């Protein structure tokens, strides 16, 4: 039972990541691979505040969001001047730089040794320690964020983003400044991704930089590309497929040594096949035109 709940908690965390990346890719048409950096920044800010300064978990979340939003502005300003491949490379550059900082700034992050002993969230003396209790917390937070995104996706703001995706010049002609909206999308997407980081850190109680690598960014990207971009269903189905698939492989009794590689091969092959046959993903609406 705890095993199933564990997978569901991870689903909740990745759902937050997928929804926030969807705002960038599916809505605004910005193929960004910096998402693991936002995730990592959220995790590290929360952790450091809790471990070093004894902050309450729920107090660290707004600060993690704030930190991640500031970083989003730093990424967005130079990257948004670029297009296509160059934009992708620029976000990739930020991803690698953030990983390097987490890995090498040993005085602050303890680098490759990671930070152990992260406290579980507590509120009014009640601790979210046990897996079932934590599961409720994760689901509630993920559900709240799901609602926020539901509002966002169908708000005038969301529609402007879609119009920018379809045709930037038209959006501009209608008096909407595309750059301004793109930066806002980045800030919101990046900021909310930080929540996933905080949740992850306090759930596993140990973080190190290898959880926030380029591969992780690619994984989040594949969740929404496989599930589908531009709506709410896509990220949801993508998260479920991508997180349950490895568990199914486990039951097929594939030896552990090759299971990890097998999983990656399946993800990779899925990406190639979907791009060929159905570029908008399983339930998506945006086709990367």
């Amino acid at each position: 039972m705890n095993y199933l709940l564990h997978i569901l908690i991870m689903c909740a965390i990745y759902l937050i990541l997928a929804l926030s990346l969807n705002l960038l890719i599916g809505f605004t048409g910005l193929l960004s691979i910096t998402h693991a950096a936002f995730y990592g920044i959220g995790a590290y800010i929360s952790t450091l505040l809790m471990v070093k300064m004894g902050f309450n978990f729920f107090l660290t979340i707004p600060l993690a969001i704030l930190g991640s939003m500031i970083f989003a502005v730093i990424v967005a300003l130079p990257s948004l001047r670029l297009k296509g491949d160059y934009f992708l490379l620029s976000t990739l550059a930020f991803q690698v730089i953030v990983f390097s900082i987490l890995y090498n700034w040993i005085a602050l992050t303890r680098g490759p040794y990671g930070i152990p002993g992260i406290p579980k969230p507590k509120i009014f003396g009640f601790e979210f320690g046990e897996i079932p209790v934590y599961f409720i917390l994760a689901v509630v937070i993920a559900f709240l964020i799901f609602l926020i995104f539901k509002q966002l996706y169908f708000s005038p703001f969301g529609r402007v983003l879609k119009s920018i995706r379809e045709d930037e010049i038209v959006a501009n002609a209608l008096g909407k400044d595309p750059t301004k909206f793109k930066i806002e999308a980045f800030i919101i997407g990046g900021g909310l991704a930080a929540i996933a980081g905080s949740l992850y850190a306090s759930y596993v109680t140990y973080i190190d930089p290898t959880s926030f690598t380029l591969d992780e960014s690619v994984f989040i990207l594949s969740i929404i590309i496989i599930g589908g971009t531009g709506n709410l269903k896509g990220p949801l189905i993508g998260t479920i497929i991508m997180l349950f698939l490895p568990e199914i492989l486990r039951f097929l009794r594939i030896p552990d040594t090759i299971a990890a590689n097998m999983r990656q091969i399946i993800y990779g092959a899925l990406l190639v096949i979907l791009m060929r046959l159905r570029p908008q993903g399983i339930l998506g609406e945006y086709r990367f035109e």
Partner: protein
Amino acid sequence: MIALGFSVIYNTSKVFHFAHGAVYTFAGYTFYTFARLLKLHWLPSILFAILLTILLGMAIENFIYYPLFKKKSSLMVGVISSLGIYIVIINFIAMLFGNETKILRPGVEKAYEIGTVILTRIQILEFLVFVILSFFTVYLLKFTQYGQALRALADNSNLASVLGLSLKKLRLISFGYGSFLCGVASILVALDVGMDPQVGITAVLNGAVAVILGGVGIFESAILGGLAIGVVQNLAVWQISARWESAITFLILLFILIFRPQGILGKRRRLEEL
């Protein structure tokens, strides 16, 4: 050399070829298979490995990119498929050979001193091959019929096809040649410092940075970009620490992208054209 290979492919097909990194890893491992596991002599091993590498590069183009190109898919679809193939090939290699670093040559290499510089034999060989292949590539592109056709393709693919050049064939040639350069580089580096399945991504990213640094659209500029990146990285390792190497490479990339997106040798273009 990786940069040069990447440049040949990127300029002609406009595909951001992530899988170039997989091709790179593949070359090293096939060489390893022939030379160490099948105990072949090194010369046929190198030839076979490079041949297979070229075939792999062409197969990726033929079965993955070309159909997408025909469907007029966007660049982003190409990038994502490329990433997908990269993941598949790399993990396949990791599954067969394991994730640990493989050393191709046991023992310490004989070292030579030239002035104050100490180089091993294999490093001198790397340098020579690099110079020869650079000149050879420039010669091919400038003075042979295929080279000129490739440059025409890079400049304007619609016009090239109107003039009766076969896009399919030319793209295949560019992937084959790009993979050839990449394979040679991979085997030399593997001989020097060994390899693991993850070397490819670093190699291709460095290559991409070098191409942009040198200037997209001009094949030769990748040579300059590659040299510049190599020098800066080694200075960084020497002055600061090896751990910041990739961060510094990407900081350079950001500066280039922001302040001079056309690269060192590139002509000034408007951002919309990029």
